[in-house]
């Protein structure tokens, strides 16, 4: 049973339920308490020790039902008893032909339980649980049947067919062989859905992470939900880092050691009371997102990131611009992710870019948002339609804020080609990175923001 539990845990991991070794030990301990008698109790006991969130409970339930689905194999009923007596003379002989093979015996007797057991054992030997790809299914089925001894059956059938009196046996055995093959296929199918379906999804996520998001046609609508989930996970990770020190404030705690030390000067009378003081660092982010025509393909991705950031970071000022710049905090707060993106794009999206104009709007209206705790994140391609880039304003932003981070959806080789003034802006950025795939974004969130975003 130890082995079965291990297999089950592997199936859970494949279904994206994270099970650590310690949890596996807990599960084993839980089972020693409950035993295997009561299926519901067994299931609930495993559930409370292995699944750790409502999502995981759902996936646990599904995996449990598939994994422990042991329907009786659909075998034709044994027909020995039902046969008329006149054929009795050939029975001993034909069954004698099948005698050499335990499998043939079980098939003829319609012993579903025995067959199921034999299939389990064969599956273990054949390593069916190692299945990874859907293309492996037919090969796995063949291997499973070989392990069960199908070759013997086929020999017996062939041998029986050659003799006139063995025909009946051959027919019967052949029908059962077909049933067995169907069962083996179903078994492998189940194993595939247990172990391989999850890896297919993670493969898909990996592909998506590497896909350039400003590629032609933008993001496939099918992938959109997955992308939003991925981006949200990243933003949440960023925010987790934030929440760590945000709440630690000045506490009215006596610092006994310091107080005693100070009191020495007054003969041990604690005149001056020393308090434990912790510095409060109030970080904030100002995010500015370009949604003009030139970044149209990537705008959705950039806005998704902006939206997720707004959800998880408390002190975030979000702005969007093409020609003019507006604050989009309200739009992001009040709408769902798709609605918000659509609304931002409707309000100011897809117009002529004018970085100079946008920066001017920013410095006229919102420059007071910047102080030495502020990190400015600019999402845009730096293509200014040959308008005055207003580097003086960019310098001003750079001087006032703690860090300026520019994430550009174009690869670095395109910077300063055509109307791009990226390299000129770059001088006033602490970091400027290309960011057009989820994988790049992830790395930026991990590395760059950790260094530059104050905790």
């Amino acid at each position: 049973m130890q082995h079965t539990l291990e297999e089950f845990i592997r199936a859970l991991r494949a279904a994206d339920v994270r099970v650590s070794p310690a949890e596996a030990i807990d599960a084993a301990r839980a089972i020693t308490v409950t035993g295997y008698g009561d299926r519901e109790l067994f299931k609930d006991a495993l559930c409370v020790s292995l699944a750790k969130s409502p999502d995981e409970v759902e996936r646990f339930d599904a995996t449990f039902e598939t994994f422990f689905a042991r329907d009786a194999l659909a075998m034709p009923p044994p027909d020995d008893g039902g046969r008329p007596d006149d054929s009795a003379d050939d029975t001993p002989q034909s069954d004698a032909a099948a005698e050499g093979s335990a499998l043939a015996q079980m098939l003829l007797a319609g012993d579903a339980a025995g067959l199921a057991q034999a299939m389990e054992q064969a599956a273990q030997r054949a390593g069916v649980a190692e299945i990874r790809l859907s293309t492996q299914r037919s090969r796995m089925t063949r291997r499973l049947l070989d392990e069960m001894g199908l070759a013997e059956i086929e020999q017996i059938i062939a041998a029986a067919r050659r003799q006139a009196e063995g025909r009946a046996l051959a027919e019967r055995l052949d029908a059962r062989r077909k049933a067995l093959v169907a069962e083996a296929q179903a078994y492998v199918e189940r194993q595939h859905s247990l172990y391989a379906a999850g890896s297919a999804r993670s493969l898909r996520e990996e592909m998506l992470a590497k896909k350039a998001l400003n590629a032609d046609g933008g993001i496939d609508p099918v992938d959109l939900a997955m992308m939003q989930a991925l981006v949200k996970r990243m933003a949440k990770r960023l925010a987790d880092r934030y929440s760590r020190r945000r709440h630690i404030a000045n506490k009215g705690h006596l610092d006994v050691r310091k107080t005693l030390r100070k009191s020495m000067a007054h003969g041990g009378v604690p005149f001056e009371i020393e308090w434990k003081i912790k510095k409060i660092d109030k970080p904030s982010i100002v995010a500015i997102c370009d949604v003009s025509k030139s970044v149209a393909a990537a705008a959705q991705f950039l806005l998704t990131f902006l939206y997720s950031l707004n959800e998880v970071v408390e002190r975030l000022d979000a702005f969007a611009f093409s020609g003019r710049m507006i604050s989009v905090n309200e739009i992001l707060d009040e709408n769902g992710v798709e609605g918000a993106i659509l609304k931002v794009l409707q309000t100011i999206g897809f117009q002529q870019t004018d970085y100079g104009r946008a920066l001017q709007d920013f410095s006229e209206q919102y420059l007071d948002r910047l102080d030495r705790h502020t990190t400015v994140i600019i999402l845009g391609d730096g293509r200014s339609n040959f308008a005055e880039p207003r580097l003086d304003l960019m310098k001003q932003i750079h001087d006032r804020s703690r860090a300026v981070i520019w994430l550009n959806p174009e690869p670095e080789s395109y910077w300063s080609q055509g109307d791009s003034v990226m390299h000129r802006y770059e001088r006033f950025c602490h970091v400027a990175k290309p960011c057009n795939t989820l994988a790049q974004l992830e790395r930026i969130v991990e590395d760059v923001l950790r260094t530059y975003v104050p905790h």
Partner: protein
Amino acid sequence: MTISTTATRPPATSPLASVDALIAGLGSVGYIASRRIATALYMAVNLQKPILVEGSAGVGKTELALSTAKLLNLPLIRMQCYEGLDESKALYEWKYGKQLLYTQILKDRMGETLADAATMDAAMDRLHGMGDLFFSEPFLEPRPLMKALKEDGGCVLLIDEIDKSDEAFEAFLLEVLSAYQVSIPELGVVVAKTPPFVFLTSNNVRDLGDALKRRCLHLHIPLPEPALEERIVATRVPDIEATLTKQLVAFVQTLRTLDLRKAPSISETVDWARALILLHADSLDPAMVRDTLNVILKFEQDIQAVEPQIVELLARR
């Protein structure tokens, strides 16, 4: 304080003997538990692990801990978490005032004691010989966690809304939850004689860390099925008529299918049942529902959304 390493199995007659006994036991103290809840509790007892209870507000997370304490006849120690909660409020605090007084007394006494020491070395030896009481248990002010560890007969420790606390505090809880002990730098390790039953509740405001989740059994309490909810209402509000219970549970269940900011949960249903009893209602009519809607819906927008449809919703079931 020592740790009891051997977990003693409860005797067969106790409510902890089996899952069914637990369900019955919880029922006797007024908590209608589903099988999964009872199993989680049973496993927690047998594996000596904390339970992390998740679910939306008002599904009975806190109530489960209260009922368990009542069932086992153990004291309940409750710690409400909030942003900025730290160990001095959760675990222990030094009694600063007394410590300062102590230094005063010490100074006076010290002169007397050391006056007759012949040499400096002798004085130092004598000084080392004196007990250092400055950081010692008499000056310790125990807070909920410490109190729970010090209950020698065991207790139920409820750490409410753990998701409201910050990550640092979560990390600090790990030692308490896995080994039932805490380290106090000045004193050493305090170990519980009888490990407390620990319940942590979470509304999922923030994702909890994996380390914390790993140390706990996980229990998610969903909104109940109609039949279960009817039983809960009947238990909590014994005076209510069966037909009214059926009607109001059906109405609440319909409300939950709507797109509301906060769908009513069990506690709202029970409150509503109580309100209706006070108003001597014996069946639901639209006027009555309209007047008492604010008991089950907690947002003005929700009330405005539901109000025009009351008649239709009542007819739907």
